[in-house]
């Protein structure tokens, strides 16, 4: 159950079950099958509906917009999430506008897949987690892949609804095994579903002393920390891993925080106007007077991502930063 393979299978299922689906992106056809090999094999079986493009991110987005307006279901791969910058006009001024500005007379359900994130030494322009700039774009859903969520379910959901989606795939998840909840467990952690948010903890929520909110690759790291702290230090916290980052489903967060009285958010993007700040703002209001301590927002340093592995590790959020923050929050 390697994530990249399961994701490829989800795309295959989409192509098979829904003939409106079109995959579009750079270098996505066989034998190459995409920079991260997610689409390998698909163009051979669906040559018309898996289309490799020139290096034209703006047009990839724009053509996807047209496909979607015409009733198709485009799924666009942006080779590195860093280059979603070139789709920004299409996302903000075209794709997410049409349904509302035409008063419901059209829909434009484009799905963007953006391989994102660092920790691989790819340097300043091939390592970013730029999703924070897309959170809060009206009428856009931002969703993040994680090892705890089945990508097939995600894509089934995307095809069933009409809102454009930005789907964040952290590059370091590709080679990992999925860790889907089975029998209420993920490894040694109890796993509880609250809508599409997965709660992971070693003990029942009421015995947890903090809530940790994380997504993507950071959720994988956080789960390891949570497990280790439980086993080695008898520190118990609940990790919540939402599938959807924006708009947020607040209910599971509220319920957990009501029990724990302490919240920490974790993301790999740079700090400042990030995912976690909205959570901190909203939860500071929703749980006003009921928090034991201020909400802690863990994000990466506010600068470029160095190529040097050593400097990158110092700058990007990773296990050490997560652990420090959880230890503090659990106090």
């Amino acid at each position, binding site marked *: 159950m390697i994530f990249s393979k399961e994701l490829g299978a989800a795309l295959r299922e989409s192509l098979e079950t829904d003939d409106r689906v*079109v995959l579009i992106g750079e270098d996505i056809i066989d034998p190459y099958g995409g920079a991260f090999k997610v689409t390998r094999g698909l163009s051979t079986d669906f040559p*018309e*509906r898996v*289309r490799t*493009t*020139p290096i*034209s991110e*703006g*047009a990839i*987005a*724009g*053509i*996807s*917009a*047209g*496909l*979607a*307006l*015409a*009733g*198709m279901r*485009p799924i666009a791969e942006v080779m590195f999430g860093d280059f979603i910058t070139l789709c920004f*006009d*299409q996302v903000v*001024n*075209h794709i997410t*506008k*049409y*349904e*509302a*500005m*035409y*008063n*419901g*007379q*059209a829909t434009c359900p484009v799905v963007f897949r953006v391989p994102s994130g660092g920790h691989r030494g790819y340097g300043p322009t091939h390592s970013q987690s730029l999703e924070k700039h897309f959170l809060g774009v009206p*009428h856009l*859903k931002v969703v993040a892949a994680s090892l705890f969520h089945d990508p097939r379910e995600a894509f089934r959901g995307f095809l069933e609804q009409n*809102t454009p989606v930005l789907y964040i795939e952290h590059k370091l998840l590709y080679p990992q095994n999925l860790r889907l909840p089975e029998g209420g467990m993920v490894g040694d952690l109890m796993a509880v579903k609250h809508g599409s948010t997965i709660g992971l903890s070693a003990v029942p929520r009421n015995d947890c002393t903090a809530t940790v909110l994380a997504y993507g690759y950071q959720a994988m790291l956080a789960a390891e920390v949570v497990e280790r702290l439980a086993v080695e230090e008898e520190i118990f916290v609940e990790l919540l891993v939402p599938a959807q980052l924006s*708009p947020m489903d607040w209910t599971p967060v509220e319920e957990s925080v009501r029990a724990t009285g302490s919240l920490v958010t974790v993301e790999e993007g740079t700090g400042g106007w990030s995912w976690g700040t909205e959570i901190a703002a909203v939860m500071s209001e929703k749980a006003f007077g009921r928090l034991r301590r201020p909400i802690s927002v863990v994000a990466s340093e506010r600068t470029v991502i160095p190529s040097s592995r050593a400097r990158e590790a110092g700058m990007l959020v990773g296990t050490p930063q997560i652990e420090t923050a959880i230890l503090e929050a659990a106090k």
Partner: protein
Amino acid sequence: MTIAPTRIPRQRELQADPRTMGTPEEPRDLRLYRRMRFIRRFEETLLGLFDEGVLNGTTHACIGQEADAVGVIEHVEEGDHIFSNHRCHGHYLARTGDALGLMAEIMGKEAGVCGGIGGSQHVCAPGFMSNGVQGGIVPTAAGIALAMKLRGSDRVSVVFIGDGTLGEGAVYETLNIAALWDLPLLIVLEDNEWAQSTPTELNTAGSMRARFEAFGIPVTETTTTDVAELDALAGNEIAAVRTTGKTRVLLVHTYRLCHHSKSDDHRPEEEVALRWVTEPLAIARQRIAESQWQRIDAEVEAALAEVVATARALP
């Protein structure tokens, strides 16, 4: 997240008032003239209403360019798709005849074609859309063409752009892909010699035509303002796109007779005056009897008066 439309989206029945849109039986010359007259008077009425303060926002009239809209759209069939830009009224009216929906839209009323949300630049009907952000509509139109191609239909996608829009990189990204993929796309480039305050010589290096041909896309170029000629040229172009399934360009050198949006015209008066001589309605009138165009003018006027009265009375 759900967007609740303020009124039930309906297949807008193209309430083609024969007084503004003519009938299939009407001789072609008359019908084409009628539609141009309709667009002209709609826009002039609009500008009047703006001065009166009844409207809000902004507007871009296509006065002087009506022949492009009418000539091209004469050949657009059910299932084809048009994408237009900020200067979209003529295209919209030629396609739908829906003067009331558009007028109400620009007045910001619920009954407007987009419930008053889109306004002058963002309108929508089955087979018709516009967006006031330049450039990005071109790949969108190509995507619609790709959908047509994937469905194996012989439908075509038509996009109208202005000369200034050749400044946007999105156009070239799309030309490349449309040519590589053989998309059934007709680009109608209305070169009206100006982009807002900027003349083409400050905006456009080299040759407009060559910009398309460099991608292997054939270009048909004309300087005519005669709707009959445009009708014929556009007929050929759309037929060619329909049968070959390949992208083509109709490059029309024309002229905008009004200001860019409102009260923002610094062009030399003589330059504009000269173009009034060859404006499409004047040319079209030469083909038809005076009594006929006078009758048509009166019918259009009556129909528009009703539209304005109805629109004004809307909540």
